[in-house]
């Protein structure tokens, strides 16, 4: 996936209100690692239906960070997981890692 996370949506939403941006970033830093960890644990335990739910939840943060292609990819991956298929997992892990690196630096 050749795209970089960005803060456009958050900037647009805040209308320049720095306090609100700061709050959203704090939530992102707190909530994303937990969602990622839950997904990874469920994946390790082969709980793919639960993984699909985790991906569903993560999709919102993927879209908040402006990752349009990754969002479309996550939709496919979520559908796959519901049928027990993990063929897209490596690329999805890469998306999570890109997001993780971006969020750490915020």
């Amino acid at each position, binding site marked *: 996936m050749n795209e970089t996370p960005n803060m456009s*949506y958050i900037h*647009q*939403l*805040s*209308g320049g209100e720095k306090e*609100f941006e700061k*709050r*959203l970033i704090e*939530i*992102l830093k*707190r*909530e994303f690692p937990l969602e990622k960890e839950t997904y990874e644990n469920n994946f390790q335990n082969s709980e793919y239906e639960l993984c699909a*739910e985790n991906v*569903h*939840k993560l*999709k*919102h*943060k993927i*879209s*908040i960070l402006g990752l349009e292609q990754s969002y479309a990819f996550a939709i496919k991956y979520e559908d796959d997981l519901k049928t027990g298929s993990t063929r897209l997992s490596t690329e999805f892990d890469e998306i999570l890692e890109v997001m993780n690196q971006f969020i750490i630096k915020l």
Partner: protein
Amino acid sequence: MNCIIIDDEEMARAIIAQMCHTNPDLTVLEEFPNAIQAMKYLNQNEVDLIFLDIHMPDFTGFDFIQTLKNPPRIILTTSDPQFAIEAFEYECIVDYLVKPVTQPRFLKAIAKAQNFVVKGESEVTKSQSAESGQSENYLYVNIDRRLIKINFDSIYLIEAKGDYILIKTENKNYTVHSTLKKIAEKLPTSVFLKIHRSYIINIHRIVDIEDNSVLIAKDVIPISRANRPVLMQRLNLL
């Protein structure tokens, strides 16, 4: 409108709450990370509107709706557009917002909610309107112990002034001890529209609209961002 937000994702709640805070017609009473907590709250409190996530662990948004005896207006929020068809099987559902929610789409949903009548509520409104004289073309106001009749079609503007409202008509202005909310209940909704937290206008008396203000008789009245979409929908626009 008083509202609550139900979503297991804190980020999603924060975003909806922020959008509500920028809208003077909305007051967020509470936020809940799950439907169970919201159900307890609703047993003791009344709300006008619920922002409800569909996809929550244990208890989905649809499960939650089915537990409500008299559901208020509900705007669904979800990352999954595929539930849209199921959503409209519920009469209390006003709109369906796909995440990430944008401000224009949010405002459109609020405008829908403001015009939306939940089944059962319409009968109450009808009977109340008959009792209140809304089926007539006038209302009475109490000024200095005198009941003064004012025809609806003579009113072009009503302005909130602290504990009073100023009713402006073609010939005379009346200052009455009341609120915009109370008088709005007496006015025909087909003619009058709240365009700002301090103003209700007679839409038939608009002279022109420019950016975020409306000229009505000789008064220039601001239009709040949240109410502008509703006003535009009501205009007979060429």
